[in-house]
């Protein structure tokens, strides 16, 4: 263990921004729930009615947790945040552990460190301490933040402590996974599967067979019942599970060589399959994981919006803020809410589009484009292959969001009208997405290093959607956002003209970008 303190100091220094952003993000996740609940429901009567609706909504419960004391701010905060918070802190622990274990071994840096006068355990101990400290900081910030917001102190601290302990458990899982697999991706896969399973088990448990919630560490955290009869003993389960996972991880650590994992890396195919014979085939192969992941994610996102059903009006309360943000001038609050949801989902889908459209640039920077362009592939074909995957993925993601909305709505209300009212208008949202895509292609063709400016356009559109109405942005400014032009479905009927204009604009931008790309030097 010689030298672990020295390593710890280096790790803490390298991770300082991780510490800051993850814990601030988590604190915001929790405290903002309190703020929004207090803003939405003006009278206790409103609050009671909304709480009664939420308690009877199975989809909500599956997503969040067991409904307890939902007509209090504290009860709402822990209900809405605990499960997502636990998943988030699990992801944080996973990323941090991977950073200092598998990633360091993959890049060969760990070898340099181990060759120095440093004990065998030093870097693993330093890693564990670093990540546990990160959990502690996040838990403290959440607990302190909730207490500072004015919620009961003991329950607030328990919310933070339980969260930190969830993090500790997932830290142990990640350390264990680091011994089993030999790659960072493998570590992400194993730990991510454990986090997902923990979330899923408690979802099923909370809806029906409650014993399943008792198999999940996230379930233990929620079983502490902050703000509704706090009890500390489930925390002991978390402590024990974290200690067990960490111990097994350390035991396995001594049994393996540097750079290897206990599970041998599987050999891949020695020959390329039939799909791998074009630029498109390669682009699909490289991006299919992300396309499928995003599609599933958007389906779930759509489901969760859709499952609110016709209760949107009651759930959101009746404050002026609600009306301005969601209704956007629409008479009916339900229509207004779904109009807002459609654009929101489209904006989230844009994040997929932007990350997919940045692939050509990263391929170029990594030198992969050079190898392909030195073969019989023309520049245009190469770019077209990349963009085709991006386009296909964008369609798929948007369709999934729309279908999710309609299915969720049908499940909640028993009405099939959601397909016509939400799923079809969702499809129209492809047009503004393609404008952003075209903008990004233009940047890539002309000034590739400014490609990230595509994200600025998305950021701007989010600001316009959230605050355009409230802060009375001038008309021309709002019109700069490509999402502000389609008819506001489902309140308004579909208009073909703006849809076609957006598509044409997208085509022109993409064409210009491709033209410029043909004429410039390849990095």
């Amino acid at each position: 263990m010689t030298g672990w303190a020295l390593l710890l100091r280096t790790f803490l220094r390298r991770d300082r921004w991780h510490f800051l952003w993850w814990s601030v993000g988590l604190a915001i996740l929790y405290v903002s729930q309190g703020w929004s609940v207090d803003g939405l429901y003006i009278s206790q009567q409103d609050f009671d009615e909304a709480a009664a609706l939420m308690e009877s909504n199975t989809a909500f419960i599956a997503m969040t947790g067991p409904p307890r004391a939902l007509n209090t701010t504290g009860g709402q905060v822990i209900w809405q945040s605990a499960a997502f918070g636990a998943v988030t802190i699990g992801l944080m622990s996973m990323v941090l552990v991977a950073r200092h274990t598998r990633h360091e071994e993959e890049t060969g840096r760990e070898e340099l460190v181990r060759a120095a006068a440093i004990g065998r355990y030093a870097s693993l101990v330093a890693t564990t301490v670093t990540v546990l400290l990160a959990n502690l900081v996040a838990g403290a910030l959440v607990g302190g933040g909730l207490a500072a917001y004015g919620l009961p102190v003991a329950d607030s601290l328990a919310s933070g402590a339980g969260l930190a302990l969830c993090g500790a458990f997932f830290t142990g899982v990640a350390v264990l996974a680091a011994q089993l697999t030999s790659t960072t991706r493998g570590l992400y896969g194993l730990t991510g599967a454990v986090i997902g399973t923990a979330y899923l088990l408690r979802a099923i448990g909370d809806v029906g067979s409650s014993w399943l919630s008792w198999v999940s560490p996230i379930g233990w955290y929620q079983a502490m019942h902050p703000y509704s009869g706090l009890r500390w003993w489930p925390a002991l389960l978390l402590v024990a599970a974290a200690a067990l996972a960490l111990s097994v991880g350390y035991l396995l650590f001594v049994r393996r060589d540097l750079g290897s994992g206990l599970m041998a890396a599987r050999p891949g195919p020695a020959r390329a399959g039939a799909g791998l014979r074009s630029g498109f085939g390669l682009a699909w192969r490289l991006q299919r994981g992300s396309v499928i992941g995003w599609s599933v994610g958007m389906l779930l996102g759509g489901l969760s919006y859709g499952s609110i059903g016709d209760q949107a009006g009651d759930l959101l309360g009746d404050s002026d803020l609600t009306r301005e943000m969601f209704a956007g001038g629409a008479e009916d609050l339900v229509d207004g809410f779904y109009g807002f949801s459609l654009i929101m989902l489209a904006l989230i889908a844009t994040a997929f589009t932007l990350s997919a459209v940045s692939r050509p640039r990263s391929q170029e920077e990594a030198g992969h484009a050079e190898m392909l362009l030195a073969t019989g592939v023309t520049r245009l074909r190469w770019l077209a292959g990349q963009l085709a995957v991006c386009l296909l993925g964008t369609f798929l993601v948007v369709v999934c969001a729309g279908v999710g909305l309609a299915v969720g709505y049908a499940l909640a209300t028993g009405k099939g009208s959601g397909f016509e009212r939400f799923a079809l208008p969702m499809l129209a949202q492809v047009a503004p997405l393609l404008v952003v895509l075209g903008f990004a292609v233009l940047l890539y063709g002309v000034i590739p290093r400014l490609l990230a400016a595509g994200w600025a356009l998305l950021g701007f559109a989010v600001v316009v959607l959230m605050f355009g109405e409230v802060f009375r942005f001038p008309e021309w400014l709002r019109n700069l956002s490509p999402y502000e032009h389609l008819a506001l479905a489902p309140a308004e009927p579909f208009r073909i003209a703006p849809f076609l204009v957006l598509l044409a604009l997208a085509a022109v931008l993409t064409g210009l970008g491709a033209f410029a790309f043909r004429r410039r030097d390849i990095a």
Partner: protein
Amino acid sequence: MATSPIEIHGLTKHFGATVALDRLDLSVAKGEIHGFLGPNGAGKSTTIRVLLGLLRKDAGEVVLLGGDPWADAAELHRRLAYVPGDVNLWPNLTGGEVIDLLGRLRGGINRRRRDELLERFELDPTKRGRSYSKGNRQKVALVGALASDVELLLLDEPTSGLDPIMESVFQSYVDTFRDNGGTVLLSSHILAEVEALCDRVSIIRSGHVVESGTLSELRHLTRTAVRVDLASPPRGLAELEGVYDLEVDGTRARFSAETARLDTVLAALVDVGVRSLTATPPTLEELFLRHYGDQLEPTEP
């Protein structure tokens, strides 16, 4: 074909204010292995990237396999294979998949040769890109290139990271490729490799080719180191044209002579009477250092 596979005249390329290539001339004849020598940053890779149509020339004339490397890039690329000096593989594709993919995109791959090359280079095609070492990544690109039925190989420091055994496997395949009528442009700074393989050599410096020719032509332009033991102390040697750095120690002398004037120098020595003589032709290294000597000894005026 009438024109040679690579014909470059006055090629100039700027990156912003820096001049990467400055009126570069290069000619590679069909069926030869042409060594492209120069230190890092001299412009070797830039030249090759212009030949591949990845970079746009600012001025000059470039003909590749009878076509325009910028306008006809893709068609020309079906007739050549390229190996970069730093091969970056897709982390989640196996070596075998990359070899097949690049081969297919080039318009076909010789499967029998592919398998033979994999065996000769002792390369495991089932490993993923991220787990290959530097040398093995290089082998993936080499197998892909050598297994393709092409006319021209553009090799940009292709053997960096290869061990000596693999280096000799590489050399034998390149030799065979040339013997079957193929043309090779081999950029390298491993001089032993160039000496063993190349028919002709071009030396590039600061974006300009400063010397080009067969190895013996180039040697001719330089000096031969001579050590001689004579019957009596030498006379008049210092006045002879083409003799440099003369050191006389009794009857022994050491000097370097212009290779082109060896005849007259030797005649003068024979007049005195030669007891023993060793003459060392200049190595490629000396040739190379002659052009870059001032960079190695920056203190000399």
